[in-house]
């Protein structure tokens, strides 16, 4: 129910963007009470769909005048509650700003509005020989605006880098309603690198309204390999061996036996049922030299004890292999009615250790855990299986999750590789950073967002209210 105090704001928003671009009925707002993170929920008071940057600026000014919080939302696929409207207020949904404004192949950039779905851009580039490199597994649904907010990664970011490496410039609406351009199509603009500051700021500094993204030439050739291992340690040692040999694969992904069972049931690839782990290794680049890299990788894996390493037979097998990897999380539904995916990072050489620890932690708490992850950059995604209707299981999964993330920090890693802090992991910020670190970040946020009306209670713990108390084991889906 819209609180009576906000009725005038809904009317005023309607005058700016038109009635068809404002939702204020309770039954229209319920679906906006959470995103891919379903543990904490809160309805916004109003949802507004701007059609232009000027609309966004006008909306922000209205929010200031009424002193209500506001936050941006794209496709709502955040796994950390990044789009959760803490404290209600106005939700600025950017899905109607979905134009690809310009594609400039000679200068290798494109200008897109924030509501453009990641894959739409790559589809629009089909046949040009270029693509947009960051490819999160949710790329069929998530928006470029959301990618910028969370500095999204993806399997191919091991070689090509994450969103910040592909963002040339940002147009954003500041919290006072002014419209500012940061960076732009040319490289290395002078002044402070605020583009880099904004990417990954999880919607706490500006509302992104336009993005200049870098376009990447498609590689001339690709070799995709499948390594089958009899122990998880052999697989993780192979990862370090490959990178240690100076090879940077385009992607290096691992799945353990637990997840392979589900993936095999879903996609019938033909993974050996007794394999303890598989690696999906892809190298790309100039055709000349790829075969040599492939042979070296095969050799290294066999030295580490691989049972079998082979190249994907053809394009169809390569696609199926990638489908198995990218949709692996969905297949987990076959193992358990609910699941919670963690997102941690450890130095690559600690992978054998952290996987063993995850196994022990699971055993200790009586929670089954399976693993699928971006092995090349040490970004682990342990999946904890449970039934959300059993409070005792939830308790155990929560404890196990916390222990795994603490272990990641102890290894010198971090509690999120790509999903972001959002509201979910805000309580870990004090474990990752000391007071001075946090104070520096807070001062930066205050410079952009002095009244803390934009995305309040996100990412940085505020004094006295360090995030929400978690009563549930985090998200059930992850990418």
């Amino acid at each position, binding site marked *: 129910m819209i609180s009576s105090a906000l009725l005038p704001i809904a009317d005023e928003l309607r005058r700016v963007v038109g009635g068809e671009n404002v939702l204020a*009925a309770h*039954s229209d707002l319920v679906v906006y009470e959470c995103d891919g993170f*379903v543990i904490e929920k809160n309805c916004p008071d109003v949802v507004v769909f701007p059609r232009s940057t000027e609309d966004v600026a006008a909306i922000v000014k209205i929010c200031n005048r009424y002193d209500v919080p506001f936050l941006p939302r794209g*496709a*709502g696929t955040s796994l950390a509650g990044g789009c959760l409207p803490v404290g209600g207020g106005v939700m600025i949904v950017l899905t109607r700003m979905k134009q690809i404004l310009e594609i400039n192949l000679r200068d290798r950039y494109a200008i897109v509005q924030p509501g453009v779905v990641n894959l739409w851009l790559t*589809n629009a580039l089909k046949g040009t020989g270029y693509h947009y490199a960051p490819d999160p597994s949710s790329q069929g649904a998530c928006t470029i605006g959301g990618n910028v907010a969370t500095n999204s990664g993806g399997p191919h970011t091991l070689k090509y880098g994450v969103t910040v490496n592909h963002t040339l410039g940002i147009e954003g609406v500041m919290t006072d309603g002014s419209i500012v351009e940061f960076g732009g199509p040319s490289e290395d603009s002078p002044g402070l690198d605020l583009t880099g500051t904004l990417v990954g700021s999880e919607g706490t500094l500006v509302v992104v309204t336009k993005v200049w993204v870098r376009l990447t030439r498609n590689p001339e050739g690709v070799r995709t390999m499948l390594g089958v291992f009899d122990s998880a340690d052999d697989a993780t040692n192979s990862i370090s061996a490959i990178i240690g040999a100076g090879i940077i694969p385009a992607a290096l992904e691992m799945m353990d036996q637990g997840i392979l069972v589900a993936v095999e049931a879903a996609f019938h690839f033909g993974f050996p049922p007794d394999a303890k782990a598989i690696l999906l290794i892809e190298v790309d680049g100039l055709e000349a030299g790829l075969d040599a890299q492939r042979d070296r990788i095969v050799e290294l894996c066999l030295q580490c004890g691989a049972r079998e390493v082979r190249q994907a037979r053809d394009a169809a097998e390569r696609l199926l292999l990638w489908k198995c990897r990218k949709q692996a999380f969905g297949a987990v*539904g076959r193992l358990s009615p609910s699941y919670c995916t963690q997102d941690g990072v450890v130095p690559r050489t600690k992978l054998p250790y952290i996987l063993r620890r995850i196994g022990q932690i699971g055993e200790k708490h009586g929670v089954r855990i399976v693993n699928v992850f971006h092995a090349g950059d040490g970004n682990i995604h342990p999946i904890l299986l449970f039934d959300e209707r059993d409070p005792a299981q939830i308790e155990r999964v929560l404890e196990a999750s916390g222990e795994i993330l603490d272990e990641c920090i102890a290894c010198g890693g971090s509690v999120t590789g790509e999903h972001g802090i959002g509201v979910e992991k805000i309580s870990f910020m004090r474990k990752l950073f000391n007071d001075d670190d946090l104070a520096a970040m807070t001062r930066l946020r205050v410079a952009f967002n002095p009244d803390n009306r934009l995305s309040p209670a996100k990412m940085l713990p505020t004094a006295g209210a360090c995030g929400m108390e978690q009563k549930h084991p985090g998200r059930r889906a992850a990418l």
Partner: protein
Amino acid sequence: MKQSAEHPEPFESAPAAASNPGSGIDYRLFLDCVHCGLCTAACPTYVETGNENDGPRGRIYLMRSVTDGRLELTQEVRRHLELCLDCRACETACPSGVQYGKLIEPFRVAMEATGGGGEKSHDWFHRWILFRLFPYPERMRAAIAPARWAQFLRLERLVESLGLLNLLPPRLRQLVRMLPPLGKPEPALPEFLPAIGPRRARVALFTGCVGDAIFRPTNWATARVLQQNGCDVIVPRNQACCGAIHFHAGSSEPARDFADRNVNAFDCDDVDAIIVNVAGCGAMLKDYAHHWHDPRQDAREKFARKVKDINEFLDQLGLIPPEGAIRLTATYHDACHLGHAQKLREAPRRLLAKIPGLVLKDLPETDLCCGAAGTYNLTEPEMSARLSQRKLKNILTTGARVVITANAGCLLQIAREARCQGEKLWVAHTIDLLDLSYRREQPPL
């Protein structure tokens, strides 16, 4: 396949009150949705409106909230659920295997039954046109006879230019504009057509209702192509509409009657397959087994197991390659009820690849609904028009002048959009092209 079927139910959820439209739905089907949102961009209505209430995840959330009793079934909620095309693109996109059709279909049936706004099943258009005219081929043929004559005498342009159509209620106007060039009336198919060459199979042909009235030439083409491929073709006389029109509009009982008439009309033991050439009907016939739970369910399941789409059947049988060259550039549109509901995407393309000379161009957003969606184009004209305009725009980017698809609704919808925009396109069924190739004839371009 389904997790909910495999997992026991150790923790009970509170059952919804019987008057709640969600009360008849297996609650575990809701739990399959992990709220990841990967379905959203696959949904045509969400892609158009950008409103999560008009996307699959949002609709599931609305239905679940109503079922849980935390949200009232308001007019707004109804509108979001009614706006769903039931195209099932979300099922293709969903990595968790959510069976969206099994949620939205019974929910809408129950939503109609519980009344409230409930105008759909009660308004004149549904009662007289959709429910009492469409499902009956003989009535349809009688109803379109004047249009056939008007087209023959070239009167339809006069009618249009005088604005006479505007005298009709909007949905009837829409209906008249959907009518394709009807051509000469063709005779009904005989009850039996023998295989040509060595006999490879014996099949029964489902001819449909609206399909048989408007697309009888395609039914003839289907029979001929089957004969060419060594099939005896039986055309049972007492068959009826598949029931999809009623079922998708939330009227379950008449649909069950049609289903049982069909189960009685086809002798499953006598044939290798029951062939259907309209994707929408095929999806419904294949679903007979689980729509209703009563003593006749086994018979319906036996029937459903025999149903094969014509593309699927010929692809599995192994097409005897046609020899007539058709030197044209074409593009193929995936009908939702073939691609998403029946998961048949490669079979029609493989068949078309066997036609000498035919060049097939990829269609951008091929699997996004064209807006026809059964009778959706008549009941939701605005959204339907947005989607057909989008579809035509995509078609035109391919440069193809022939659009091939395997569903009656898409054929009508795309052809109408092209006519309205003055684009010369030939919209045809896969089988129409195969038939021409076997007969060494050329399309009427």
